[in-house]
């Protein structure tokens, strides 16, 4: 990806050319070897998982590193239907639809207020978020269980969504606060002077302006929540039918030992990776644009 609009403007191509030439020589054999090694290490296992998903279980066991002799789609149907991966995927999507929307909406509202309004306790609220960022889910396991039980939210979709939102909010708000601060104030002020309400200013002016930041933190949250394992393990472990994808895959990974359906496991893993790759493919450009503008200014 070349530089985007948010990065510092590059000088004209004429001035740029010598530099590019210089870096071309820097990128010597050693660097190339390093990159190739990285690609093999990083993407290799994923490609192997995806390829293995097309092989029958017996073949996988006898020769784990082999190439698929022919492409077998039945692993996918087995995983989807028999191993309930279909059900788990739907559960994950439903939870994510609620939690991601909630996180982004509440997080951007809070960030907007912290970044753009002075009110008593502004600093304290900001510290609350910064502090919350440091507090991992794993420390809170026992008390969080009690909290959710008290509110009657244990083993409910709403409860899981709320927990996801609460643990994603600190970083989201923290990130977006600095992002909103980098946006020019003029447009917002003009809108307010023209009599636009807070709500209208926020949704019609500020949110569109903050799009790059929203996209990158949105993807960050998507990855985190899609792969979240501890929270569902703690709050959503009662009924196997309501498992989310990581739970389903983990239990499949444990049970393949005696059921021997390795093919279904690999197919399940592949299914779980697909949405992540799609989202990444669609938003790749914005991720970097957002990081550039939000993270570092």
């Amino acid at each position, binding site marked *: *990806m070349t530089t985007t609009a948010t990065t510092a403007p590059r*000088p004209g191509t004429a*001035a*740029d050319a*010598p*530099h*590019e030439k210089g*870096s071309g020589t820097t*990128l010597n054999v050693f*660097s190339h070897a390093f*990159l190739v090694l*990285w*690609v093999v290490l*990083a993407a290799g296992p*994923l490609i192997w*998982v995806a390829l293995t998903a097309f092989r029958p279980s017996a073949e996988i066991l006898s020769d*784990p*590193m082999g190439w698929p002799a022919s492409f077998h789609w039945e692993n996918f149907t087995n995983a989807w239907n028999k191993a309930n991966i279909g059900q788990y995927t739907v559960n994950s999507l439903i939870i994510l639809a609620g939690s991601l929307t909630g996180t982004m909406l*509440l*997080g951007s*509202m809070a960030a907007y*207020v*912290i970044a753009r309004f*002075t*009110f008593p306790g502004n*600093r304290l*609220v*900001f510290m*609350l978020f910064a502090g*919350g960022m*440091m507090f*991992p889910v*794993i*420390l*809170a*396991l*026992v*008390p*969080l269980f009690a909290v959710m039980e008290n509110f009657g939210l244990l083993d409910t979709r709403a409860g899981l969504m709320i927990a996801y939102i*609460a643990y994603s*909010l*600190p970083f989201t708000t923290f990130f977006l606060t600095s992002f909103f*601060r980098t946006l020019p*104030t003029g447009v917002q*002020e003009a809108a307010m002077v023209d009599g636009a309400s*807070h709500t209208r200013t926020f949704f019609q002016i500020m949110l569109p302006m903050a799009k790059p930041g929203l996209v990158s933190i949105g993807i960050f949250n998507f*990855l985190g929540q899609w*792969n979240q*394992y*501890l929270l569902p393990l703690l709050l959503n472990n009662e009924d196997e039918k309501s498992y989310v994808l*990581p739970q389903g895959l*983990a239990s499949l990974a444990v049970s393949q030992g005696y059921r021997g359906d390795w093919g279904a496991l690999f197919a399940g*893993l592949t299914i779980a990776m697909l949405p*992540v*790759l799609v989202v*990444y493919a669609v938003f790749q450009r914005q991720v*970097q644009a957002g*990081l550039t503008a939000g*993270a*570092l200014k």
Partner: protein
Amino acid sequence: MSLKAPPSPASSGRGRGGRAAGPVSRRSGIARLGPLPWIAPVILLILAVVVWPVIELIRTSFLNISIAGKVRGSAGTDKFEKLFEESDFGAVLTWTVIWTVVVVTATMLLSLALAQLFNQKFPGRRITRWALIAPWAASVLMTAIGFKWMLNQTAGVLNTLMLDLGLIDSSKDWLGKPETAWPWMMAVAVFVSLPFTTYTLLAGLQTIPQDVYEASRIDGAGPWQTYRHITLPMLRPAFLVGVVINLINVFNSFPIIWAMTQGGPGYDTSTSMVFMYKLKETDIGESAAMSVVNFLMVVVLVLIFLKVSRWNEED
């Protein structure tokens, strides 16, 4: 994200004399409460789901609770004393520090190299950038389980491969012994930390204007000099963000160790997080005490973080 704390009141964009140019007039009481409905639900949520557990945790660490969950009165500081007297406590803390320092250092160095490479134009850059996201796309838990299979003594790919190449005489139980388990787990932790860190540094590199490099080249600086005196100083904000985020994540990391060794044998491959989790099985109060100690260590991290952000502000 900026490491700066919010500006003090009245400093952000409404310094136009007495005119209430900003969205909020500082004179009007009602207008000052204006944003509260916007932020109240978020604060309530954080208080209920994040802060309340912290308070409960601290309370539990001073209670005597049976395995069945019955509160048998106050335990005073007994649980903390019991924790500090655990024979493994010192080793666990030492390993937690080693784990955090090694993983964060290795992650930052490798990410610097990767970001530098990815910032240049070369054939196949698209594909390598796609590979960059790969460890991020698969969940940490699944990556750790995958590595565990690879390292398996009887069926693991690694043993088979090394035997075939003649690197080892007999297959090894890599995760069974702490001295081989630690390096492998650290490698996995670095592996999963690289994507985010490299992206942050890459973003940092792209904010450096090209004409600075141009000037340095004209002044006759070599590539290494340019890197040391121009790239590194200008990369500092991104670098600090990377270090801080990684410190927090690596310190709090749980799934990698849990999936690969469960902190065993004994507590030999446990960080304080894993130790805390394992104590939960035997003594909830002591586990809570460990959590409080953990949390205090996290708070120290926060303080370092705030200090770092102040350094940042002085620039």
